[in-house]
Structures are given as C-alpha cells and as structure tokens.
C-alpha cells in the first residue's frame, strides 16, 4: 500500500480509474480477438497524430465542457440533472432557428442573439424541473428524464411542422446558417487541417473560468454549494432553498443549452432531426463525474473523452474495431470513479491516521461476513 498525501490521492484515483477503464476495454477486445494495442495506438494516432485530428478533438470537447459544467452546477446544489440532453437540444434548435430567421442582421447582433436564445431555451427546460422541485418537491430525476422525451418529440414537431418550409432543405434538415450567425473561424479551421474547430472553444474556456469564479468566489456559488451540502443548515442560516434550487437549475440548463448552441452554430451549421437523446448530454454527465466537478478536472476530462471519441472513429476505420468499444471504456471509467472508495483504499494517507476513517475502514473490512 502506497503512502500518499490526500491531494495526490485525489489525482491518482481518476488516473487509476482511467487506466482500469482502458484495461477493461482491452480485455473485451482480447476476448473477441481484436488487438488492443493496435486499437489504442490507432486511436491516439488519429486523435492527436495530425492537426486535423487535434482540431476535431478540441471541437468534440467544446460542447462537453458546457454540458459538464451544467451537470456540475446542479449537482453542487444536490440535484441530479439528467435532463442535459433535452436542454442541449432545445438550445441547439433555438439558436439555429434564430439565425435562419434573421440572416441579414449584422454579426455583432445576430451571433449574441442566437447564443442567448439558446441559453434561455436550455434554462427554460431545466427551469421547469427546478420549479417543480422547488414548488412541489417533485423528484428531479424523473422530471428531467421525462422532459428529455418531451423536448425530443417537440423538437421534431417544431422543425417538421412549425418551422417555415423556406428555412428547411427537407423535413429532416434545416438549411445551412449564414456566416453572420456562425461560430466558424476560417483561419482557425485551416490552421487545424480544415477541421470543424470553431470559436466555441474560446467560449468554453471562458465558461470554465466563469464556472470556477462563480462556485469558488461568489456568494451565489457558496449558497448553491451549501444548499447542496446541507439544506437544513442553509435554511437556518437564512438562505432560501427554493431560490437556490431554481437558480442552480437555470444556470445548469443555460450551460447545457450553450452546449447545444456550439454544436449547432459551431460544428454542424444546421439542425437535423434527432431520433434519440443527444450524446453530448450523457457525455457531459460522465465528464463532470470524471472531472470531479472541478473546473480544471472538467477541462481535462472533456479532452480525454474527445480523444476517445475522435480516436475511436479512426480506430474503426484503421484497425476495423467496432467504435462501441470507446463507449464501453467510458462507461467502465465512470464505474471505477463510482467505486473510488475502493480504489482510494489502495493508498494510505500520509497524515496522521484519521480516526473516523480508520473506524469506517475497520467496519468495512469486517462487513463482508457476519
């Protein structure tokens, strides 16, 4: 058993989880006669081996940073916001719609307008769940899941039946947005080998800083965190639980909406019919968990996930290994994060033994048998 400081331990646990996740992937590949070394090397080569790969990896990470921040804010307040896919989708459709409907507005007006509309759309969807929780105590896990489906089908309907036909190519795809509303930057794309990298990444970096400042340096962040840690004590200290529930869900949904916005205005330049919940929502959840909900952690975790996802595409074409292995590795990593208590026990704290921890450890050692 290694002796480490608790700070080192906080870094080591995710790293071990990541390695263990890759190991699980390797074992599954071996069972089915794929070569894991070839798989992983082609994965890293295609994600990081050339400028286009790097650009695509950064592009892939961009929306995940937003959705992960969205998840992290809600979970700081004690809410499990599984509605990220729906909130992001609302943001995506809303922002594209604004740009398509006003192609002649100047860029300085149109782009911020579209972004803000997307944020508001995401915030409204999450706000419904927050309001129901604050007002009626309705379980937010169920409401956000249900809202995902409501948004999924509503977006199909809005696009196919309500959106003017002149804004669409066909029933399943909108027209490409005008450059006035796009986050594309020509020189950036060509620098990164004509990849779809866009200005979204700058917004994401700003968002990471804003998130860090909000949670660590402002009263609002402090209140959100304390409501999440102990709602009763917070109420006793004069904080409004309802206000903080609403606020954290609105912020959470707003960030998730932004994730959808960069997906639309940055990556795809249009909106097309979705048949299942958006991946960036689920992945954002995983990124936040892996990153321990810290600003830096989210940034690094988003990059790792993107390497896996972009690299996974390369792995499939180069090595002929099904792409799904990537998602299995991701799920395995989250599993190890979930059981980090066990992984943490591989290490001993360097400081003087914490009595409470030692007691729990003792209990658990004897917990298996009666």
């Amino acid at each position, binding site marked *: 058993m290694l002796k480490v400081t608790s700070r080192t331990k906080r870094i080591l646990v995710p790293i071990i989880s990541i390695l263990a996740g890759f190991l699980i992937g390797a074992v599954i590949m071996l069972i089915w006669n794929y070569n894991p070394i070839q798989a992983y090397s082609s994965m890293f080569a295609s994600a990081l081996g050339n400028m286009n790969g790097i650009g695509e990896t950064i592009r892939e990470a961009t929306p995940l940073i937003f959705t992960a921040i969205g998840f992290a804010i809600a979970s700081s307040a004690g809410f499990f916001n599984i509605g990220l896919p729906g909130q992001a989708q609302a943001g995506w459709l809303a922002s594209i719609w604004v740009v398509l409907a006003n192609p002649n507005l100047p860029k300085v007006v149109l782009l911020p307008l579209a972004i803000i509309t997307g944020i508001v759309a995401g915030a409204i969807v999450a706000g419904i769940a927050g309001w129901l929780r604050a007002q009626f105590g309705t*379980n937010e896990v169920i409401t956000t899941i*249900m809202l995902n489906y409501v948004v999924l089908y509503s977006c199909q309907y809005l696009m196919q039946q309500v959106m003017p036909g002149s804004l669409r190519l066909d029933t399943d795809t909108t027209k490409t947005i005008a450059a006035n509303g796009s986050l594309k930057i020509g020189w950036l794309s060509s620098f990164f080998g004509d990849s779809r990298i866009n200005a979204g990444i700058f917004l994401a970096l700003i968002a990471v800083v804003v998130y860090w400042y909000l949670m660590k340096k402002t009263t609002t962040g402090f209140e959100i965190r304390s409501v999440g840690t102990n709602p009763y004590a917070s109420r006793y200290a004069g904080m409004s639980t309802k206000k903080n529930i609403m606020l954290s869900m609105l912020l959470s949904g707003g960030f998730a909406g932004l994730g959808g916005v960069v997906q639309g205005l940055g990556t795809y330049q249009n909106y097309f019919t979705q048949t299942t919940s958006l991946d960036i929502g689920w992945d954002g959840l995983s990124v936040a968990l892996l990153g321990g909900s810290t600003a830096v952690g989210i940034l690094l975790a988003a990059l790792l996930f993107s390497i896996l996802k972009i690299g996974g595409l390369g792995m499939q074409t180069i090595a002929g290994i099904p792409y799904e292995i990537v*998602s299995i590795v991701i799920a395995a990593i989250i599993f190890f994060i979930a059981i980090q208590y066990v992984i943490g026990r591989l290490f001993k704290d360097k400081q003087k033994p914490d009595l409470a921890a030692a007691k729990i450890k003792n209990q658990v050692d004897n917990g298996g048998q009666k």
Partner: protein
Amino acid sequence: MSLVAILSLLVSSTFVYSAPLIFTALGGVYSENSGITNIGLEGIMTMGAFSSIVFNLTFAGTLGKITPWLGALVGGIVGLIFSLLHAVATINFHADHIISGTVLNLMAPPLGVFLIKAIYDKGQTENINQSFGYFSFPGLANIPVIGPIFFQNTSAPAWVAIIMTIILWWVLYKTRFGLRLRSCGENPQAADTLGINVYGMRYAGVLISGFLGGIGGAVFAEAISGNFSVSTIVGQGFMALAAVIFGKWNPLGAMLASLFFGFAQSISIIGNQLPFFNHIPAVYMQIAPYVITIVVLVLFFGKSVAPAADGQNYIKSK
C-alpha cells in the same frame, strides 16, 4: 369500426406495450424496497433485449414456438448477471446509486452493439421469426363482448406479467422474505440488529430487479421490436422507473402505472386508427405519456414517499 373492435384493438395494444414495463417496474419495486435505487433499469432491459434476440435467432429453428419464452428466460438471466455490477458497486463498494445505475445505462447499449458486431459483423440483427405474437385464451375468448376485448388476440406475456404482479405483491407484503426485504429499505440498522442479513437482502433486491428487467427487455424485443439495435430500448426502462414511483413502490401500483403508460404509448401508435384520436396531432400523443407522468407526480405525490433508506448505502457496524 364497432365499439367492441375499437376496445379490443386498444386493450390488446395496451397489453402488448405494458408487458415489458410491468416486468421491469416490478423489478424496480423490489430493488428500491430493499434500499437500492436502480435507475439502471434501462441498461438492464437493453441487455435482456440483446441476449434474447441472439438466443432467438440462434435456436428458433430447433426450438420452434417455445423460443420466445426461453429467450425471455435467457434475457432474465443475462439481466441478473448484468445487475451484479450495480449490486457490488452499491452494496459493497459504497458507490452512489444514481451514478452506478447510470453506468449500467451507459454500458449496455455499446456493449450490446459491440457484441452484435462481433457476432454478426453488422450493426443490428436480422428480424426474429419466432416472436410472441398474439394469443387467444381457449374458451374464454368465446365469451361475448368480454372475450373479444380481453381474451382474443391478446398478449400472453402481459397476462403472465399480471399474474407475476399478484405473486410478487403477496411475496413482498405477506411473507417473511418480503418483510425482511422491506425492512432493509426502511431501516437497515434496525433490520441488522434483528439479525437480518442486510447485504444479502439488498443483493436479492437488485438481482431480482436484474432478472425481471432482463425479462422486460426480452419481452419488448421479442414482442415489439423484433430485432436488436442501439435504438431497441429507448426510454422504456425510464418509463418503468417512473411507473415504480407513480405506483408508490408497490407491485400493484407499479402494474397499474405500467398499464397506464402502455395505454398512453399505444394510443400514440394506433391513435390514427381510432375515431376522435386521429384528429389530434401526433406530437401530443407522443409527448402525452411523459407530460402526464410529470403532472401526476406533481398532483398526487408532492414529496416523494420512497422507502426511508432507499438510495442510502448501509455500512455495517460492529
């Protein structure tokens, strides 16, 4: 269309869509009554659907008509094995129940598709030849009015699910095992003091949910979708979870909630064949089950009334 014809169409499609939800929701009831929140039902259903379809495609030729039933059993067993992940993580390793359940949901679809690609070298399977199909009760089907509505061309798995509900209700409320299971979800410390093996009971709860969830997924695949792909199970597990809460963590309640969701789902699918409903835009029918779930939760429940220790890890003390 005559009234009897309309009702029989409605009842039979409600049954078809309810059956997978009932099985899975019953599983959820057992898991949550033992104290383990299980939002991984969706993933468990996916594994059940995957394995039953593979089994069905492999053995339909030799086993014939009984294949879907055995496929459901195989789905149940695979679901049980898959749910072990959740059990070990939450019961022994102190994992957050929601995160661990989410892992099941994240893991199952890619694992299923990966295995399909590894086995069949393509992204989705062929359609099965031996599906559950429709079933008519001999004798009962001939009763006037009631016969055609409830017993002709109906779903056999749904009837099995309804019988299972009654049995599982009886087990949960009338047997020693059920009482012990519930005590572990209400007050594990007290249960432990009385000599009940809390860990064992919670394992039982999760594994039962894995078995029933696997059957639920298998029934969905073999009665409705007919093949397996990444989009075979999209939301049924979450609907079942909602049915658990909607049904107040009681098997009978969960069954009624599942029947209601099945009704709402089938309305959105057969609505265009029905008078009155065919004038409502499809989107309202599609989102109705989800909106109604939210409304019902708000109107009739307010604060959740889950078993007191549901979702809390229990760490045994000396």
